[in-house]
């Protein structure tokens, strides 16, 4: 039987710049390629957005050859991030110069990327267009209009998630246009589906929820040097992830449970502001900010922690919550997340219920049995989630669209 030929417009290799999106696309491509004939087109390196068009070379990548090399992570992580356009990072740039000017620069870079994709794709034969997140959507729209082939969009994160308190941007409009023209939309949670329906006004009939798979990390046997219990936050330091909420929660937890310490792992546009806020906090001496961490370091951190906290304003999926669950951490997480649908043992609350978060964390800190019960429940869930299962469901959509 002839395999469906799928053209995947990817977000780039997993890196600090595309975080959960990059990891998910990487694993999906790996598993989907076993079911279909997959061609991946993606920026070779994300910093190429910052170079001139003439200097760039985009190559169609078959995942079996180049997409399997996870080592590339360590190289990409070194790049200057402030000058790069990337799926999650365009917001940081808009704050540096005037809104209108920066927005147009980002848009020009995105348009250039679109042109490159269109040129390269001309040489490829395919039956289905499969595009991941906004950066690839303009190219997906143009290819759909040109070829009339089925278009499947995979939504890992929305402009609405990334800009929870901002007006609708041109990225929002691009997403909305792509959703209208798409034949199918895959999203990573019912939470995300509800936003696409209610905020973007898209018919729920063409939206499928397919949860990501889970790859067990090589969690380290790393002892915490602290005598206090460690409460952990992992994520990009952007408003979307609620790091300022975490700081507030930490102050309340420490007030009621002084034998506690807090670690905020991640980097982002709020890094400096949060360090300053942390320094002004009364728990400054027990509040650590690590900056960006390698996978290996993150594994150590999961091993050091006692409780995971994710007060995200909007989290379509929440890969880090699953990783924390895999490490056996009990957790208190935001209702506005895919992870709260999946993880039966996660305690979930409104992201801005600071006292609620603090109280639940304190309860967990005081009750080892409860911690064990919830963490065991979550571990069972995550270990049953596979990328193969997600890939099989996606393949079904390719074949029926």
């Amino acid at each position: 039987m002839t395999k469906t030929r799928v053209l995947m417009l990817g977000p780039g290799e997993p890196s600090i710049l595309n975080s959960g999106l990059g990891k998910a696309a990487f694993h999906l491509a790996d598993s989907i390629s076993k079911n279909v004939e997959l061609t991946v087109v993606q920026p070779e390196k994300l910093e190429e957005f910052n170079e001139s068009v003439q200097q760039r070379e985009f190559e169609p990548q078959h995942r079996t050859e180049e997409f399997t090399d996870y080592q590339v992570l360590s190289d990409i992580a070194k790049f200057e991030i402030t000058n790069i356009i990337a799926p999650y990072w365009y917001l940081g740039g808009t704050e540096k110069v005037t809104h209108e000017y920066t927005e147009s620069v980002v848009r020009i870079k995105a348009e250039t990327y679109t042109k490159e994709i269109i040129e390269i794709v001309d040489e490829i034969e395919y039956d289905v267009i499969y595009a991941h997140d906004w950066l690839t959507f303009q190219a997906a729209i143009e290819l759909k209009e040109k070829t009339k082939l089925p278009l499947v969009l995979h939504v890992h994160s929305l402009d609405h998630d990334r800009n929870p308190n901002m007006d609708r941007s041109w990225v929002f409009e691009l997403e909305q246009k792509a959703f209208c023209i798409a034949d199918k939309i895959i999203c990573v949670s019912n939470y995300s589906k509800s936003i696409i329906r209610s905020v973007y006004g898209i018919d729920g009939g063409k939206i499928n929820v397919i949860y990501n798979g889970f790859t067990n990390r090589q969690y380290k046997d790393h002892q915490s040097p602290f005598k206090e219990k460690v409460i952990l936050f992992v994520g990009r330091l952007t408003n979307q992830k609620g790091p300022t909420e975490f700081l507030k929660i930490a102050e309340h937890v420490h007030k009621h449970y002084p034998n506690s310490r807090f670690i905020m792992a991640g980097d982002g546009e709020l890094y400096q502001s949060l360090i300053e806020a942390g320094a002004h906090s009364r728990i400054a001496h027990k509040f650590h900010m690590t900056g960006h961490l390698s996978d290996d370091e993150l594994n150590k951190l999961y091993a050091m922690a006692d409780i995971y906290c994710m007060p995200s304003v909007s989290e379509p999926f929440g890969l880090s919550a699953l990783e924390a669950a895999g490490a056996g951490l009990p957790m208190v997480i935001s209702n506005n997340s895919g992870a709260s649908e999946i993880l039966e043992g996660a305690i979930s609350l409104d992201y801005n219920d600071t006292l609620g978060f603090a109280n639940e964390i304190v309860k967990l800190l005081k009750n080892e049995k409860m911690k064990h019960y919830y963490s065991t429940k979550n571990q069972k869930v995550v270990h049953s989630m596979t990328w193969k299962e997600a890939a099989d469901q996606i393949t079904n959509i390719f074949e029926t669209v």
Partner: protein
Amino acid sequence: MKTAFLSLIFDYTPVLSTFSIFDIGSDKHYVDWEQTQSSFNREYFSEFKRYLEEMLHESQDKDTPISVYFSGFFIKLLEKADEKMIHEIKIAVNNRKLELLGGTINNSLSSLYSQDQFTEEVKAHKSVLKKVFDYKPVSFYNTESIYCNTLADLIKSLGFKRTFAGAISWYMGSNKKDRVFIPKNIQSFNILILDKDNSLFDNPDQKAHFLLFDIKRLREHKGVSRVLLATRTKAKIKSLTDSGKLNSKKLYYIKTPTMGSLNGKTFSSFNGQAMQTNTLDMYYNISEQAGVISDSQFLDLGAASLYLNLGKKDDSTAFDKYSNMMNILNDADLKA
């Protein structure tokens, strides 16, 4: 003819190790000695050495009394960079051509935070001077010339006869021409009031001038010899021992600490920002909780210069430095 007293300050800021959260509880050193020594050597041979050579030349060959403060860091690094220089300084000191000033071991702010820690650091500095130069200091230079009444008692009890202090113009009033004062109830201890600048003609009534030069100021004035050349045209240079003859017996009664800083620094230069106050508070809380800490690694963290840039928002590394310092302090806290 005016009288001038010249003192030099040689200190060096160490490079701290990159200390991640995963290094807390490990055996990693707080100071990156390799990098510190390498930076020091570069600067020493291109600049500092000339100042020391000029200092020795002026004090020995031209019989010009100079007093000098070497921080513990500076001595430690100099011992490795130029053993011969250490030897020559020792000869000059032993021949009474050069006076060494006592101080805190690493030019710290401990006098503002902890009397016990301050005492420990002064003793540590005296111990280094004894060991390296076989010298017992009697004049005291406190970091940035910090002074207040209670310090006078303490410094005297540690075996010193005089210390420097910044001039408070409004307080001195009509006594501006006087430069040597006494603290209340301690007749045998002198407070030497520093000049704010080096223009010896500002006040024609002022006959004595206490001048302090650190490396930055020496650089600005093109070295020790040039400073002395300019000073000699207007004043006779004397040793600090002779300063007692200028004792006015007037009180310099300062309850709140003052800073007679070189280069315009104020207290808020060190503790005006949350990142600075946090790290300083944490450092001195550790020493307070644990009692006096004489561990050399812990004392290394006391260097005032380490806290100077922590709050500067125009320094893009200030935030990383703060996180780094907090990790180090957490490690120190665990080990205290």
